[in-house]
């Protein structure tokens, strides 16, 4: 009899998560009990119509707003549980969560390297090490040749790559991407998704991509559809969560290569 495969631990686990804005008769329930699990190395899509609660969910996950009830577990550690939360949310965001935004939102007065190096520096890494790590990330994203360029000198695609490099700079176990392909054309959008997929596998990062983008929705192996504050999980074709010899979990997304 073969030994049982170890049960993979989700990088992100949401249980019965609720969020209500306001009180009394003006209260609006944005999340009505969301359950979600995302595993290391997996890229998951989060889709839904406007006002369905996507951004609220992302903000709860990003530890910038407090849920009303439920539980959030990141990498096995409970960070929120029915009103209780961990103390240092700023350090949590800095060390364990990477953010990619709809627009790159790079710091305009820093060059590409320093935009990426800022995060490790904030975490206490020395300037030299932080810049080396930044260059490593820029190389991984194929924009190392623009390392010294000011933000205004970068093209839109280059800026988005630098912002992805910034999200990865502290090698966080979780990345939250908010409409990362919205301003891009089809080819560039697919390139970004491919990059995210590669990075997820290479760094064992769990990535949630919030999107409306019809071009990239089919590329996800697993999709959470959020509607009226509740999530419905939709399995894409061929989704497999497999364990390697070391017990690590792999999720493979079929991402079309750009023409």
């Amino acid at each position, binding site marked *: 009899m073969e030994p049982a495969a170890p049960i993979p631990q989700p990088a992100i686990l949401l249980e019965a998560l609720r969020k209500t804005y306001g009180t009394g008769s003006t209260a609006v329930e944005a999340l009505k009990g969301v359950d979600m699990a995302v595993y290391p190395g997996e890229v998951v899509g989060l889709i839904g119509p406007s006002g369905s609660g996507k*951004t609220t969910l*992302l903000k709860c996950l990003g530890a910038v707003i407090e849920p009303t009830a439920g539980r959030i577990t990141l990498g096995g550690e409970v960070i929120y549980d029915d009103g209780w939360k961990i103390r240092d949310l700023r350090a949590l965001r800095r060390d364990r969560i990477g953010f990619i*935004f709809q627009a790159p939102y790079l710091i305009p007065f820093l060059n590409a390297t320093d935009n990426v190096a800022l995060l490790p520096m904030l975490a206490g890494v020395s300037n030299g090490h932080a810049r080396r790590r930044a260059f490593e990330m820029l190389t991984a994203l194929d924009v190392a040749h623009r390392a010294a360029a000011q933000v205004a000198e970068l093209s839109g695609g280059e800026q988005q790559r630098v912002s992805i490099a910034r999200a990865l700079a502290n090698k966080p176990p979780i990345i939250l991407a908010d409409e990362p392909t919205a301003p891009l054309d089809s080819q560039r959008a697919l390139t970004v998704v491919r990059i995210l997929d590669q990075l997820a596998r290479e760094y064992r990062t769990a990535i949630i991509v919030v999107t409306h983008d019809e071009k990239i929705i089919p590329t996800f192996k697993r999709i959470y559809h959020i509607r009226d504050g509740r999530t419905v999980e939709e399995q894409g074709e061929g989704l497999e969560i497999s364990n390697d010899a070391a017990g690590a979990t792999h999720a493979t997304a079929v991402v079309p290569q750009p023409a």
Partner: protein
Amino acid sequence: MINLASRDIAHGFGRYFLTSVGLGLLIGVTLSMAGIYRGMVDDAKALLESWQADVWVVQQHTLGPFAESSNLHDDVYRNLLGLPGVAETGNVTFLTMQVKQGESDVRVMISGFEPGRPGEPALLMAGRPLTRPHYEAIADVKTGFGLGDRIRIRRNEYTVVGLTRRMVSSSGDPMVFIPLKDAQQTQFLKDNEAIRNDRNRLAANPGLNRAGVPGLLDAVEANQFSNRNVNAVLVRVTPGWNPRVVADNIKRWKYLQAYTGEEMEEILVGKLIATAARQIAVFLVILALVSAAIVALIIYTMTISKIKEIAVLKLIGTRNTTIAGMILQEALGLGLIGFVIGKLLATLWGPHFPRHVVLLTEDAVRGFIVTVVICTIASVLGIRAALRVDPAAAIGG
């Protein structure tokens, strides 16, 4: 760690520098105003020091020739010389008037003195002291007159034989020194028509124009049309004597008011310049408020223009203190550059002011401290706006 403030400043240096120049102009004006006040005090002290008088004797119940009208008989000095501790005395008169200088005229203070006695300007930068009893003058360079120039004062012309520097009245009018007798005549001289009328009136008075007393009318006229008054008597005390003691003796002895040199300086600085000093102080407060408003507005605008970036910085884990430090450093940088520009401008334009401007290092240090305080306070508005930014604003539209 990257210095965010210096990078932000370098990124928009043109706008930042122009703002600093604007602030620098304000700081320059502020420093100049303080310099004008210092100059007024300095001028007052220089004037008094030049006369080297230990005691100023003036009309009783008056503050002296600069603050109030003071008239003494010109023979009072003889009585003063009889007092113990009095070494030298000198009569002086003062009269402010306009004198012609080419096509224009210049406002001056005419001072009459007796050569070789207290009241004579101590230091000449060019020329010589007065040697003739009449119609020679020593002028301050600020009058614009040079050696050999002729100054018309009332009916007479005076030749400039000596020049002084920094001899100005408390109002900033440059001094012209002439012989005492000429000054007395100038001060109390009536115009020809008034003299003729007075003479006719005296001649028509039977009590003063008696047929049997031929010299009476002449004696009365001589008494009426000559002036024996001076505005002050300057006293130098015998070495070893305390001017305070001598001044007290003079006050007790005759119905005169006597001030020591320090007291006269206090009258000049504390009373005559006090109103101007208050006015300058009000200006300084207004300028400080305007500077604070400008710095606050600029820093607030700079902060608001990067709200999204601040939200991102907070979202990725930047401490509030780091963001507040960035804004504070930018405000202080604005103040620092502004101060350097202001000090430079004040130094450059100072000599071109009509009044003497004294830029003291301690005033510059005080100005710098005030600038730092103003910039710190002004940055509060920007810091408050930045700290209110919700990191959640970086997520979503």
